[in-house]
């Protein structure tokens, strides 16, 4: 029996969702519309009495004060067209699930509930209604759409699966190279020919054939085996490009290098060397080996840190992609060591301009839609999980049209010891049980790992899209932390890319083997093939290793906390990755081959410096130039986004993302107190400047790292207790017919890594975790849109006493304004040049030795309490930093530009150059002497005073800038005031 209930707002009550939709129809789609009303639809499958239905409506679905409902008949609202948006079969319907629980509470019956939303559109044509549905309200990958004049369509998106699970085998032996590649393409295996050969040679070797035969397997590999290998060997999981053997040639200098793994040569080596140098002061606890990096916080607690990307899923379904991105990285932290509790999120997005008005290639969503979807996904993922989003930024460049970048990061806290064991150490032993905890398995997210290792093309599988449920995950998280504290967890890892295959396969390396029983895995619906159960990336699941002596207690607690936990396998020491389905072996692979059998890639990289046109223009009016800069997407206020994220939950907020008199100034970094009883704090910041990569990715990386550290230091972060996380997002760096400059992109990657080594070492800030995403291209017929090479550094440090922190807003009239650092004519890749349509060549270069010295002294000055405000100079240079500090404190400044320590250059260059490692600091006059004493030996100058209500910049008597701070603030705010 089907019952359809519609719930809408009463006549005179504001329908906020309808109003918001109307605004977006007008603003985003340019469609004139009179009225939008909405209603929620609950379609119930199950036998219910009339009285029960009424009770459900009145006591669960409908708020009697503001809403009304109808049962099995349409709710009447003024309209020309009605659009109904529901889910496609198999897509997670969170509200539906909660409704089922609510009904059970109320009347004690178990039913199925499917939800959808009605939009009553007044004043549009059918074509317009269709556009609204497809371009704003629904995503056809996951939603079903009905457009109606009147009446309703009664249906339920039940998965109708009559497929009988089966196992296929593949006669690799008989396949030509062409056929092998065809197989790889058809099944989205993303395996290269060389890898397919390695797999073929393995399976048909004498020993393997014999061993497999003994298990009842044919000589040909099964789909389960092939899929498990493809997943384990995917770029996403194995980082083949970062581990490749690379021949690098610098065509400008003739220099040649052979690099055996970028990761080992540059990233890992730097961290190892820094740790050695630090000796006893080493605060790194676990680096590059776990789901997240772990650093020491104090004697009792450690901090786990991880930043991930979720680019491809966010391109296809911005909301779902970003939501699963943030929930996924939360699980990485929950799965670090024996488990850490997430305490903050940090999110960085790269989008094309939301005002983009050009053609959209097939299957590419409009950047505004991506922006809004991603924003909402992160809002729901963070807010509903009770994790404050304390840091982030948005970078705009139209090359992100092909693929948006969505970086999701999380920090977590864990006691350094639990029941006498180090919490960062995990292991599995022969006989331990593999328990899957959390959600159930469906077809969602199958091939995520291999898929993200490919370019986005028109036939990209829609099953790669998953929708997360923050509440299911929160329940699981609460339970797992409770279990951890009771000492029930030996090892924990998340089910992300590659699902159980990856989570059990990887943790089985400790014990050296595992058996997985696929028929025991709880499914969302029937009809999944064994390989799908193994590979599914259904969300909200963790895999936990529990020793047999504790399994009863573990399962008991799970039941008590209403969390599903199922033994799905056990760890062995057989050396085999052994998968069974209904008692039959369906995969039997050597652990050694699975994890270490992938052949090393051999690649060529060729670097030649690109010369860009040197700009030639004379600015008319520097006031205008500054106002225009402040309005630019990369500089303007992001308050619209920040306010919609909860940045204060957990109660430890100290420096918020927005600061100043009116709580609207752009903070350089955020600080939280993770332990409320203590004044110790964590400082979180980031750096990302893809524009500089157009000139040289070496300096792009140096500057990005400097920016992240600089932001961190600006609020009081301690560079002596500071760790970094690196995230590389690249365009395909493998040369091929349709990617002719792949070797150049690889050279850019090599140079980026060289800088990472040089500068992390020089700053003595070790990377403790990182991630790469290598195929951020869009390809369709002859269109190729590649993202600019992009590196994000996330930097986390400790501040001993948060009461010493400073913010960027000027504090008092009469305070002295200082600039720290020397200014060079470095506008290559700057916002100022970009505004005038140029790239230029003089990219900023970092002098890390000088910078580190400055950062240490500034830290001392901050901790001594002689700094009133401190703001870093970044996009837009000195003038933008001055303006931001001034209007955030709602006070003006008078600056004498000739006092700025600098090279000789035109005044507009002086104001807008993006030379790194500089700050604007204000100091109370009574602290002048002490401040200058502390900073002595570094380059700095007093350049003016906080005064009046305009920003006035003079150069040798000539007025360059004289603009009221209100005008500056307005210019900075208006761009994204949505």
């Amino acid at each position, binding site marked *: 029996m089907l019952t359809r209930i519609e719930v809408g707002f009463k006549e005179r009550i*504001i329908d*906020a969702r309808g109003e918001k939709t109307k605004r977006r129809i007008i603003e985003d789609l340019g469609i004139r519309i009179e009225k939008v009303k909405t209603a929620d639809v609950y379609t119930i499958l199950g036998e219910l009495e009339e009285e029960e239905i009424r009770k459900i409506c009145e006591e669960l679905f409908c*708020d009697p004060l503001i809403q009304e409902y109808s049962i099995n008949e349409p709710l009447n609202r003024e309209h020309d067209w009605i659009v109904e948006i529901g889910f496609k079969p198999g897509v997670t319907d969170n509200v539906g699930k909660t409704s089922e629980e609510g009904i059970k*509470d109320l009347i004690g019956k178990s039913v199925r509930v499917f939800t959808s939303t009605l939009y009553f559109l007044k004043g549009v044509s059918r074509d317009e209604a269709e556009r609204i549905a497809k371009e704003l309200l629904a995503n056809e990958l996951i939603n079903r759409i009905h457009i109606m004049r009147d009446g309703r369509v009664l249906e339920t998106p039940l998965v109708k699966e009559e497929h009988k699970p089966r196992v296929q085998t593949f006669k690799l032996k008989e396949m030509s190279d062409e056929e092998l590649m065809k197989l790889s393409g058809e099944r989205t295996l993303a395996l290269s020919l060389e890898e397919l050969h390695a797999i073929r040679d393995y399976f048909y070797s004498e020993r393997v054939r014999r061993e497999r035969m003994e298990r009842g397997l044919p000589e040909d590999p099964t789909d389960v085996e092939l899929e498990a290998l493809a997943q384990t060997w995917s770029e996403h999981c194995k980082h083949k490009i970062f581990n490749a053997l690379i021949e690098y040639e610098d065509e400008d200098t003739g220099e040649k290098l052979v690099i055996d793994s970028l990761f080992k040569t540059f990233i890992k080596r730097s961290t190892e060397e820094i740790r050695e140098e630090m000796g006893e002061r080493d605060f790194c606890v676990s680096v590059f080996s776990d789901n997240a990096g772990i650093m020491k916080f104090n004697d009792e607690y450690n901090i786990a840190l991880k930043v991930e990307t979720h680019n491809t899923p966010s391109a296809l379904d911005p909301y779902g992609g970003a939501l699963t991105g943030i929930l996924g990285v939360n699980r990485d932290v929950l799965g670090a060591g024996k488990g850490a509790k997430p305490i903050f999120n940090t999110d960085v997005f790269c989008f094309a301009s939301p005002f983009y008005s050009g053609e959209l290639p097939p299957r590419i969503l409009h950047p505004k839609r991506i922006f809004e979807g991603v924003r909402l996904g992160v809002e729901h993922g963070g807010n509903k999980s009770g994790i404050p989003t304390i840091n982030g930024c948005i970078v705009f460049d139209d090359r992100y049209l092909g693929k948006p970048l969505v970086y999701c990061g999380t920090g977590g806290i864990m006691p350094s010891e639990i029941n006498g064991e180090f919490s960062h150490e995990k292991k599995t032993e022969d006989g331990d049980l593999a328990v899957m905890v959390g959600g159930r398995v469906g077809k969602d997210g199958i091939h995520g790992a291999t898929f993200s290792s490919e370019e986005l093309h028109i036939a990209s599988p829609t099953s790669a899209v998953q929708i997360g449920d923050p509440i299911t995950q929160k329940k699981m998280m609460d339970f797992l932390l409770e279990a951890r504290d009771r000492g029930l967890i030996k090892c924990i890892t998340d089910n992300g890319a590659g699902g159980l295959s990856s989570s059990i396969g990887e943790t089985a390396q400790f014990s050296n083997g595992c058996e997985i029983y696929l028929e025991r895995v709880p499914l969302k619906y029937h009809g999944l093939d064994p390989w799908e159960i193994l590979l599914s990336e259904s969300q909200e699941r963790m895999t936990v290793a529990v020793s047999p002596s504790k399994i009863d207690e573990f399962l008991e607690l799970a039941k008590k906390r209403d969390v599903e936990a199922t033994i799905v396998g056990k760890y062995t020491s057989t050396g085999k990755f052994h998968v069974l389905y209904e008692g039959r072996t369906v995969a039997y692979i050597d652990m050694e081959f699975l994890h270490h059998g992938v052949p090393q890639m051999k690649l060529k990289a060729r670097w030649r410096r690109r010369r860009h046109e040197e700009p030639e223009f004379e600015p008319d009016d520097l006031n205008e130039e500054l106002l225009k800069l402040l309005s630019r997407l990369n500089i303007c206020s992001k308050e619209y986004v920040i306010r919609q994220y*909860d940045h*204060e*939950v957990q*109660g430890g907020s100290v420096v918020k993302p927005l600061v100043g008199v009116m*709580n609207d100034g752009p903070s350089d970094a955020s600080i939280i107190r993770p332990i409320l009883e203590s004044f110790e704090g964590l400082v979180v910041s980031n750096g990302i400047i893809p524009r500089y990569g157009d000139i040289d990715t070496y300096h792009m990386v140096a500057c990005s790292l400097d920016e992240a550290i600089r932001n961190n230091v600006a609020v009081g972060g301690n560079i002596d207790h500071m760790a970094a996380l690196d995230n590389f997002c690249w365009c395909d760096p493998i040369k091929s017919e349709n990617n002719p400059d792949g070797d150049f992109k690889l050279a850019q990657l090599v140079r980026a890594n060289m800088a990472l080594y040089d500068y992390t070492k020089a700053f003595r800030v070790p990377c403790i975790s990182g991630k790469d995403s290598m195929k951020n291209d869009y390809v369709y017929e002859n269109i190729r849109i590649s993202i600019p090479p992009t590196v994000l550094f996330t930097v986390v440090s400790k501040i001993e006493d948060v009461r010493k922190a400073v913010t960027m807003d000027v504090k008092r009239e009469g305070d002295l304004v200082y600039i720290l650092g020397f200014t060079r004519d470095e506008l290559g890749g700057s916002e100022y040049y970009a505004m005038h349509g140029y790239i230029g060549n003089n990219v900023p270069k970092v002098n890390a030795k000088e910078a580190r010295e400055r950062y240490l002294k500034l830290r001392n000055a901050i901790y001594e309490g002689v700094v009133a405000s401190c703001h870093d100079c970044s996009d837009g240079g000195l003038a933008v930093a001055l303006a931001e500090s001034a209007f955030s404190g709602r006070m003006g400044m008078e600056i004498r530009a000739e006092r700025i320590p600098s090279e000789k250059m035109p005044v507009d260059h002086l104001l807008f150059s993006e030379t790194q490692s500089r700050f604007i600091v204000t100091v109370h006059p009574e602290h002048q002497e002490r401040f200058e004493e502390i900073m002595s030996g570094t380059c700095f100058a007093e350049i003016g005073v906080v005064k009046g209500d305009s920003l006035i910049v003079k150069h040798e008597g000539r007025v360059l800038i004289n603009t009221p701070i209100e005008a500056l603030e307005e210019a900075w705010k208006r761009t994204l005031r949505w």
Partner: protein
Amino acid sequence: MEVKALILAGYGINCENETAYCFRKAGAQAEIVHLRDLLSMERGLLDYHILAFPGGFSFGDDIASGKVLANKFKVSLFDDLVELVRSGGLVIGICNGFQVLVKMGLLPGFHGDYGAQKVTLTFNDSGKFEDRWVHLRVENSKCIFTKGIKRMYLPVRHAEGKFFTSQNVLEKLNKNHQVVMRYISPEGGKAIYPWNPNGSLEDIAGICDETGRVFGLMPHPEAFNHYTNHPRWRREKIRESGMKIFENAVKYIKENF
């Protein structure tokens, strides 16, 4: 005497730790208890003096915020809850907790008639979730928790905080002194958006029942547990915080139980 506070947790509630911290700091013995442990009778409501429904997203705000949790309480724990209030105990609901109290009808509880929903909290007029600090005027009400407080400055963090009710109920709330706090402008005048962040009727941010012992509010006092939580602590001397609400509660129990 030992003041015992039960801080509810589970199913998407997420402010339990800082709420417990505030009660502890105020001198209570605060215990975080999972909803399932109440439902299974492993813990009894009546063993505590204070019950707190913390902020968060119980059941994901699905259907309507607070609704599903309110129903769960109503179905199996309502008698104990009412008994706790009648016997002199205190109940506070913050943000999502306020939504729960309203939807199960514990607020406003006219004439001690708990269980009938008379007011609601619904979607902000802005259509957005927003995290921002708001100025509040504490009215002369019966509320135990706000005794001696005139003004407060606290963060709101919600998408469904618009207070709404019928004219009739509104009049009654005013007449009975059950309106505890209202959003005001920084100068103390009538609040318009964003100072009234959600479009609440008569700028109402919090109400209490007729005994003054049940209190619900949208802003988060527990997020202002230390002066460094204040957005401008680097600019101004911060004297007050959200702690007073918790201190009042503990003091009341000590004096009256």
